[in-house]
């Protein structure tokens, strides 16, 4: 009884708070201060056609570094708890028969999915998407590969090296910003290039490519660990 009363009380308080938020909400007719600054100056200062990317990688680059760190921590913690023995790493489990349709479809689709993921993170400064989205798309390709062929061996060393080198390179490109431009993760380390072309926006395509490789490697590693830790049927 007391428990139910408490729950009802909490819900009532939350409902009151949300009602107030709803009541005082009015649609903005103009942009707020920061948003207006970004909308008017981002294209000129950063040179990226996609303003979202210029905010994520340059104006709020430090937050992105934090997000990459969080993802890295998640991957490490999952690897720690799914610690594999040597025989787990190399054993082949007898799975049920994989459907012919899935195998054939994966042979056609996996290269296209990888290509699309790479396209998304290389063109992050021009079209929607970027490093995180491209990396996740590459990881879905790896997932399809694993589903079609459950005993596939994914080379752990390659994944670890790709992941570490891109993480270090991201920070090094950021440090170049201190020397050659205005500060950490400033993208104006070289000329901004012609607005709207592939080689524009300074360091943004480089940084986003490294983020894409890192995210793809980390999520693929998580999937691979889960697949390898499945027990015999």
């Amino acid at each position: 009884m007391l428990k139910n009363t408490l729950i009802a009380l909490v819900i009532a308080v939350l409902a009151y708070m949300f009602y107030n938020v709803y009541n005082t909400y009015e649609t903005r007719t103009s942009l707020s201060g920061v948003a207006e600054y970004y909308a008017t100056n981002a294209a000129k200062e950063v040179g990226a056609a996609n303003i979202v990317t210029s905010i994520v990688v340059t104006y709020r680059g430090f937050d992105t570094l934090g997000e990459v760190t969080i993802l890295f921590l998640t991957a490490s913690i999952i690897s720690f708890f799914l610690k594999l023995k040597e025989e787990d790493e190399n054993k082949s489990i007898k799975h049920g028969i994989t459907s012919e349709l899935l195998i054939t479809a994966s042979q056609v689709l996996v290269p296209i999915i990888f290509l699309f993921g790479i396209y998304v993170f290389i063109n992050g400064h021009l079209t929607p998407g970027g490093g995180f989205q491209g990396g996740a798309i590459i990881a879905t390709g790896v997932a399809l590969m694993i589903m079609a062929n459950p005993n596939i061996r994914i080379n752990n060393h390659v994944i670890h090296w790709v992941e570490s080198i891109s993480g270090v390179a991201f920070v090094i490109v950021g440090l170049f910003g201190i020397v050659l431009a205005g500060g950490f993760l400033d993208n104006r380390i070289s000329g901004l290039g012609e607005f709207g072309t592939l080689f524009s926006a300074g360091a943004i395509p480089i940084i986003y490519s490294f983020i894409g490789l890192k995210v793809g490697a980390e999520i693929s590693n998580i999937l691979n660990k889960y697949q390898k830790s499945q027990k015999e049927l």
Partner: protein
Amino acid sequence: MNKEIVFIIIALILGIVSLILALIAIHNKKLSVAILAAGVVSLFASVLYLLMAAPDVAMTEAAIGSGLSTLIFFYVLNKIKKSNA
């Protein structure tokens, strides 16, 4: 019919269906059905983000929310089932 009304109708349908699916995800006794329902909620949410002109967020939601996390939930479900049996 003008564009705005079509937009509102599509958003309403998507919202109501994803609410129903979210309830299924909470209350269904079969865990595999619950995982699939949660994945479809993510898929509908990504369509809603697309309608609200946020393609960046929609891509993340579609790839991670409805693709990878559904898959990882199934892996974990499989692991739990075998260690309990």
